[in-house]
């Protein structure tokens, strides 16, 4: 109150530029966003488009390299999260920042407690204050409950209350619906609308178009760190936005062998697979069936978070499927251990290279022998043949062009591209029949990307059955022989990868635009 904005925008971020030193990625390249007071502004884009980075800069978590931020018509230089708080900006992160053992009320006031005599906190005052805030904002929640007892939707309410308690005027929600059930999403949307009615400004980060169209007043689209479109939601249509998000660029020059070998015999059979989330409540994979033939690359396209991770983990035995079956070359491996999967000729290259794909504190040698240390080549049951392990690591490091000073270097010291090369070396050299590979080039530079593609093509020529999961459409189109599109845990489209297939078409299916027609017809072949 009192302050009359000289600009019609409450927030303007102009020509924001950000380069990450670690992997030399240009995350933001002249990104811009202009937000009007009291609106719900959607910030959309594919994974890695820079949405979260842009908002982290606004919240003082990341530093910008260049660009300007204007708040209420004043140019501001946001120094740190505390400073951003004091300017009335708050963000609900994708992963909640709450203390499980504290009550709702304690979490809300943490860091900004009011004290009475002798610096003591009055728990009653705190609970009353939070109760009042909860009532005023319509985010109903019992303040004396422990956070540990709350559902994801309730936790999100606590996060928003936290921001309101600190007097935030601009509230950033980072992919707020990704952890919620349908009902919780409806509640969230109602709450967001109420906040807007109370004069708050909301920035809503999402890559789900349906939601964006439903909730937002204005939309800004980011692609590869650049603002490519912005406007009123009512004046844009879904196709336009989907196209702006995905874009149509010059493809990377790769020698692919699409359709080179004629795949015949199916090696991997997946039948009516259902997988539930870790809480066992929501079905993340809802009845998926497909085959992968020897010498074929089957690409699964989809916006991240539509069940790909759960599907892959169930295929490889990391997660239990609730029903359905998985066969490798005729052998039923459903619900078997990971080792059984591997022994039957399945290899897996996860998207999470450092957590899942490798052990960052172990050496290259140790990482290479991780899946085979017990096998006769390396072991006589009780002892590992260290010199054989060394020789093997040495050969693979050379063969896969890993740039390292020593095979004893810990993996964590290497660059992303070299880590990926080591994982690929291990998985490819295990001589699998089926290869599952997720986001193989995410965050890699052009040279490493090309290396990965070339090796993948080699595997294909060697008649491996390859399942490629990627949210990068170019990659899917360049490499795959067939493409399935996954949306909300279901396969919504099945294409042969022919010259007529465009990114725009796949993009529409990825965004769930053709959901209804497809569910009726079950599957469409182009």
């Amino acid at each position: 109150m009192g302050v009359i904005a000289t600009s019609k925008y409450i927030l303007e971020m102009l020509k924001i530029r950000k380069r990450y030193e670690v992997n030399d990625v240009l995350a933001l390249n002249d990104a811009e966003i202009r937000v009007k007071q009291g609106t719900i502004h959607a910030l959309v884009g594919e994974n890695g488009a820079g949405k979260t980075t842009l908002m982290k800069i606004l919240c003082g978590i990341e530093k910008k390299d260049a660009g300007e931020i204007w708040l209420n018509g004043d140019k501001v230089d946001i120094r740190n999260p505390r400073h951003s708080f004091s300017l009335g900006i708050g963000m609900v992160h994708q992963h909640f920042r709450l203390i499980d053992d504290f009550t709702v009320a304690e979490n809300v006031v943490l860091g900004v407690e009011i004290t009475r005599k002798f610096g003591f906190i009055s728990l009653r005052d705190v609970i009353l204050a939070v109760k009042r805030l909860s009532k005023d904002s319509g985010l109903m929640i019992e303040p004396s409950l422990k956070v540990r007892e709350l559902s994801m939707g309730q936790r999100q309410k606590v996060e928003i209350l936290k921001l309101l308690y600190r007097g935030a005027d601009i509230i950033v929600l980072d992919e707020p619906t990704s952890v919620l059930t349908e009902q919780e999403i409806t509640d969230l949307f109602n709450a967001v609308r109420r906040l807007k009615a109370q004069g708050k400004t909301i920035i809503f980060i999402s890559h789900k178009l349906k939601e964006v169209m439903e909730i937002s007043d204005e939309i800004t689209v980011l692609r590869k760190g650049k603002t490519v479109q912005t406007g009123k939601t009512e004046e844009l249509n879904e196709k336009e936005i989907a196209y702006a998000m995905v874009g149509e660029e010059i493809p990377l020059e790769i020698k692919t062998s699409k359709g080179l070998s004629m795949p015949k015999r199916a090696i991997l059979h997946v039948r009516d697979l259902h997988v539930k989330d870790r809480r066992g409540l929501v079905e993340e994979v809802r009845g998926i069936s497909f085959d992968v033939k020897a010498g074929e690359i089957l690409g699964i396209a989809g916006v991240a978070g539509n069940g790909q991770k759960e599907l892959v983990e169930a295929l490889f035995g990391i997660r239990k499927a609730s029903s359905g079956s998985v066969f490798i070359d005729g052998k039923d491996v459903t619900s078997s251990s990971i080792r059984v999967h591997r022994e039957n000729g399945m290899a897996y290259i996860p998207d999470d290279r450092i957590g899942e794909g490798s052990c960052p504190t172990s050496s290259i040698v140790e990482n290479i022998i991780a899946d085979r240390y017990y096998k006769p080549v390396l072991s006589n049951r009780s002892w590992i043949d260290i010199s054989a392990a060394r020789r093997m690591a040495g050969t693979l490091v050379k063969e896969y062009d890993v740039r390292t000073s020593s095979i004893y270097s810990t993996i964590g010291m290497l660059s992303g591209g070299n880590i990926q090369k080591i994982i690929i070396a291990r998985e490819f050299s295990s001589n699998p029949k089926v290869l599952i590979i997720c986001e193989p080039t995410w965050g890699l530079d052009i040279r490493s990307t090309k290396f990965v593609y070339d090796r993948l093509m080699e595997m294909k020529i060697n008649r491996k059955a390859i399942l490629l999961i990627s949210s990068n459409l170019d990659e899917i189109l360049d490499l795959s022989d067939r493409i399935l599109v996954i949306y909300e845990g279901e396969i919504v489209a099945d294409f042969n990868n022919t010259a007529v297939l465009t990114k725009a078409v796949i993009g529409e299916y990825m965004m769930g635009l053709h959901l209804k027609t497809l569910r009726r017809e079950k599957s469409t072949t182009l």
Partner: protein
Amino acid sequence: MISNFIHTTLVMTTPILLAALGGMFTDLSGMLNIGLEGMMLASAFTSIFVANATSSLLIGILAGLCLSTTLAAIMAYFSLSLRANVFVVGLATNLFANGLTVFLGVSLCKSKGTLLFLNAPKLSNIQIPFVKDIPFLGKILSGYNALDYSAIILTIICYLVIFHTPYGYHLRAVGKDPRTAISVGISVYKHRFLAFVLSGLFAGLGGVALSLPLKIFVGGMTNGRGWIALVAVVLGQGNPFGVFIASLIFGASSAFSNMLQALTDISPKLLLTIPFVITLIAMTVYAIRSKKTYE
């Protein structure tokens, strides 16, 4: 006799309780300081030596606390700023303090054995008027020294600070979820450092409580109390009253072992193991219970 036993128990509890309260702060901050034993020992020697030299109890106590707190600050610097492993740093402190006190004993007092400090002022027992005359209860409630009383008062103060002040909230938040603490603007470094300093102060007081009332120092006189205090920290589960009860159990087992030594012919060496046997039992019971609640 029962009142005597309770009296001895409380006296035995004091050093363990003080050290455990200090350890509890570091445990709450998410970085347990296992150097309690060493800090106690350093302070035990320094306080009685300085008190003897200056004939002042206060200066003696302050000198002891100074050394233990300095040790704690150095440990915090190593493990927080230089990122050394906190357990290795703690072990090093324990070994260092043990060697240091023996060395100082030899070089300053020319003796390897028990050091008597006859010039040191006496830390007298305080008799509370009227209360001391109540039969039975008088013996239990009255006649302790200032350190014994302060240990009880500090327990209550710690409770209030941890559960009813912003500092306590912030400290617990840092220990439970540092990332969340940072996101609301709470400094993890600052709170862990301060927790270490507090552990130095409290363990130092615990050391003072060992040497000053007896006016003697013996090499390694903490005799595992710093370690038992660590167990009390774990059993207390971050609550000062929990820590108090756990310390009391260990105090009682020491008193029990003392009593048996006077009354029976059982080998004293065997009796001296009682507190450690109790520790082992306590940890086992705790492990079984927490496993059950986990399931």
